[in-house]
């Protein structure tokens, strides 16, 4: 077997050093009735590289890829162009096949990357500090809610209707077991976000207000106004950014007063990957440093006084604190953080800004073209690269019919909110710098057919 270096001669020589008669003898502690005497029946035996590649290629071919058709899906995952350099660098074995940097003397590469990543995220979010990443945006969002509870010692989180429904569901699952109360609502298909309704829901029991920026319908809430209202009641503002490219042209949540900013970093470097692995981003005010979940990398010096980096403040973490830890998290999303960081380095502030502007103009063109389709209305006043439209019929079926015409035409609100009849005709359309004028024309023409 190509991944196993031992030969039969090695095995018998090693068994004689050990003083065992066979490999099976080494499993003597397993009760006989639980020990299998042969490979599990009914499963295939080993296969060559060529055979495995062929099998997987067949499965791969049975999908419609985003790059092969006009593509307009967003709602928490975006298709941006990732420079070839990113994938080349993350495949260097020293990054790919390294472990968590618990031995800093021989992990300065990973550690410096994490320190740079934390700084990039903090600057992007406008926060004082950031962590070394979490699993994804949805779990980062829950971790922020839990952290706000620890800080304020209050148990009620108020979530905007504009927060991604999967993020809300994730929080709902966790809150059921921790006893936190979540005040949630579905969005309303209207031009402006629910800022004022949200503010009215904040009270003296509120630990935090959670606002997505831009929201699930692409609208852009006034974070400064919400921050002021939350903080007046002693609650924290958690801003959720599912499309970090937006911050190339929008003010950072931290600069608008958000106390904690979380996000999904997938847009930069990571790719669509059918939903994972993705990259949870997490930044906050420095005064909450010791309540941050997940890993943190910090600067220090070595025995010679040279600058170096280590994982730090681990007294918050499970391997030290066990049941008293701030979180049970034991990994970050290291390789995705590296990909994000490299992409961000290639872009720089000017490149990020350009990419954001090009995504925005593509969305404007799409919105203008769709507004001309009979029966279709564009919902948003303002948006970045994603907006909602109202269709004259159920959007879920429209999306399926568009797919039959080889157009991936957005995410239906019926898929995201199956219980909300009022949203059934809503469709969320995203565009990026990858979107061409031909793609937009194809969407419009297919949509006209489907709606006819």
């Amino acid at each position, binding site marked *: 077997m190509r*991944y196993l270096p031992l030969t039969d001669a090695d095995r018998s020589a*090693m068994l004689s050093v*050990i003083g065992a008669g066979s490999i099976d*003898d080494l*499993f003597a502690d397993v009760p006989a*009735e639980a020990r*299998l005497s042969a490979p599990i029946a009914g499963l*295939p035996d080993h296969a060559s590289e060529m*055979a495995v590649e062929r*099998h997987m290629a067949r*499965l*791969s071919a*049975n999908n419609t890829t985003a790059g092969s058709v006009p593509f307009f899906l967003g709602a928490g995952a975006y298709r941006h162009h990732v*420079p070839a*350099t990113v*994938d*080349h660098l993350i495949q260097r074995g*020293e*990054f790919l*096949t*390294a*472990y*968590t*940097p618990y031995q*800093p003397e*021989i992990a300065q*590469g990973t550690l*410096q990357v994490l320190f740079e990543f*934390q700084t990039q995220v903090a600057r992007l979010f406008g926060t004082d500090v950031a962590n070394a990443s979490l*699993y994804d945006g949805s*779990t980062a969002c829950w971790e922020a809610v839990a952290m706000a509870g620890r800080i304020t010692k209050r148990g009620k989180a108020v979530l905007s209707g504009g927060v991604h429904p999967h993020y809300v569901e*994730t929080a709902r*699952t966790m809150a059921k077991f921790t006893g936190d109360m979540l005040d949630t609502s579905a969005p309303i298909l209207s031009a402006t976000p629910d800022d004022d309704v949200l503010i009215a829901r904040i009270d003296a029991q509120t630990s935090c207000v959670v606002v997505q920026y831009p929201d699930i319908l692409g609208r852009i809430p006034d974070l400064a106004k919400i921050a002021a209202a939350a903080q007046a009641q002693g609650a924290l503002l958690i801003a959720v950014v599912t499309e970090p490219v937006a*911050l190339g042209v929008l003010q950072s949540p931290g600069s608008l007063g958000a106390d904690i900013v979380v996000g*999904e970093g997938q847009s930069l470097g990571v790719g669509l*990957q*059918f*939903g994972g*692995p*993705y990259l949870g981003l997490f930044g906050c005010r420095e005064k909450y440093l010791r309540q941050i979940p997940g890993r943190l990398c*910090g*600067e*220090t*010096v*070595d025995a010679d006084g040279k600058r170096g980096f280590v994982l*730090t403040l681990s007294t918050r973490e499970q391997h030290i604190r066990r049941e008293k*830890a701030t979180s*049970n*998290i*034991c990994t970050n999303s290291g390789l995705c953080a*590296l990909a994000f960081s490299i992409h961000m*380095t290639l872009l720089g*502030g*000017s*490149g990020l*800004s350009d990419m954001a502007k090009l995504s925005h103009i593509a969305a404007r063109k799409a919105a203008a073209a769709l507004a001309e389709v009979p029966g279709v209305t564009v919902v948003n006043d*303002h948006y970045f690269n994603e907006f909602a439209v109202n269709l004259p019929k159920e959007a879920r079926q429209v999306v399926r019919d568009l*797919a*039959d015409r080889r157009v991936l035409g957005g995410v239906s609100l019926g898929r995201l909110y*199956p219980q909300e009849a009022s949203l059934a005709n809503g469709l969320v359309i995203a565009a990026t710098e990858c979107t061409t004028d031909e793609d937009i024309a194809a969407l419009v023409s297919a949509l006209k057919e489907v709606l006819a």
Partner: protein
Amino acid sequence: MNAINPTGWRPSIGENTPDGTSQTFTGNRALQLEEALLFELGNADRSGVDFPATDDIDLSALGPMARAERPDLPGLSEPETVRHYTRLSRQNYAIDLGVFPLGSCTMKHNPRLDEKVARMPGFADVHPLQPVQTVQGALGVINELAQWLIELTGMHGVAMTPKAGAHGELCGLLCIRAALEAKGDPRDVILVPESAHGTNPATAAFAGFKVENIPATPDGRVDTAALTARLGPDVAGVMITNPNTCGLFERDLKIIADAVHAAGGYVYCDGANFNAIVGRVRPGDLGVDAMHINLHKTFSTPHGGGGPGSGPVVLSEALSPFGPLPFTARQVDGSIKLIEEEHAHEEHPQTFGRMCAFHGQMGMFTRALAYILSHGADGLRQVSGDAVLNANYVLRSLDDVLDAPFGSAGPCMHEALFSDDGFAEGFSTNDLAKGLIDEGYHPMTVYFPLVVHGAMLVEPTETESRAGLDQFIGAMRSLADRARAGDERLKSAPHLAPRRRLDETLAARKPKLVYKES
């Protein structure tokens, strides 16, 4: 200062370093290259990506939240970027460079076929919310891997969405809570052996349980009598690692499981060490109700410097109805259906809900499936056999120079455990570990499990050759001799790594988590 090293330490020409070589003008030492921080190298005007001109783009549709200035993020050109990260990469140790014997972490070879497969466009370039008719192949991967995991563990169902081992633990415990609530039997205590991974008690607490520790016996296993004596109407379940963190098989697991079930509780098995038994023992045959499988351990998806992981959870018949959304189901016509919130009330009404956005770690599923198909049922059995053989070879090749606390009790499983007993006064496990760095190895897991003084947990995995192990054993014997003899130079090791011992106290006392211009 004219030196090209802008990063704050003084290059000093002519001074001798502790190993007798002279320092250089740049701070570099031939192939050992220093690298400045991105923020010292780049600026926001520089970019490695070309875009069309954007000056004329009308931004009015952004509304009042538009920003006035571009973000303060340094950029680099493409050649500078390649060099920055390539130079940084060379300051890392990695499996690709040599033995990486971290106990409980299963650092095995990462096949490059798996990387190629994960990048096939049908997996890498599909959106998680595409209509299911357009992602049948991707759903097929999830379903096929799920079937393998069920067969290999002898369990009833599997939750594929947990994003890492600890997330999988949470999934298992949430299933247990949901099952108890469905029975109207609220219980709030989880029993955890003292040798458990720290994630176990942390997860139990996070899921709202009270954690009680169960002692170990002198032979390194769970004290079955103490555990069964503690069972009662308040005990929701137990979390047991098998093979355990001492590298030993919990012989009594079936007896424990029967007792826990009889008392109305459930058995969670931490599957971190599944690599030791894959293809030879099925946890389902031992009465386990839930077990996470770290795909990044047993099924060799790369660790990536600390993630992403992936932690699917296999479930017993009793717990399967409570598993999370979404999941896949193959239909009679061969197509794959995705069960999400929309269909949950008909097809999976008792689910505890959703644990994350989307479908879990797809990029890890493709890699793990390629790995499993490559090995097949026969190869996976050889994997556990060789992993255990290599660990016992290390154990027996070192137990005359290092104390092996459970070594006399018989063979170990996939990892060999040693203590610092016998080291000279003032010499610690950490000293030996840092000495291993100078020898060109990554240290083993140190000071874990907590039940052994100065623990050193060595997991060689099945992908090490005998010759490679012999050299590692030679290095370990030499270091054991030095630690026992009290070689002072060991106490300041490593001497040859890119950095010497780092001041972790300073890092924690004055946290500097982001770069600030001084």
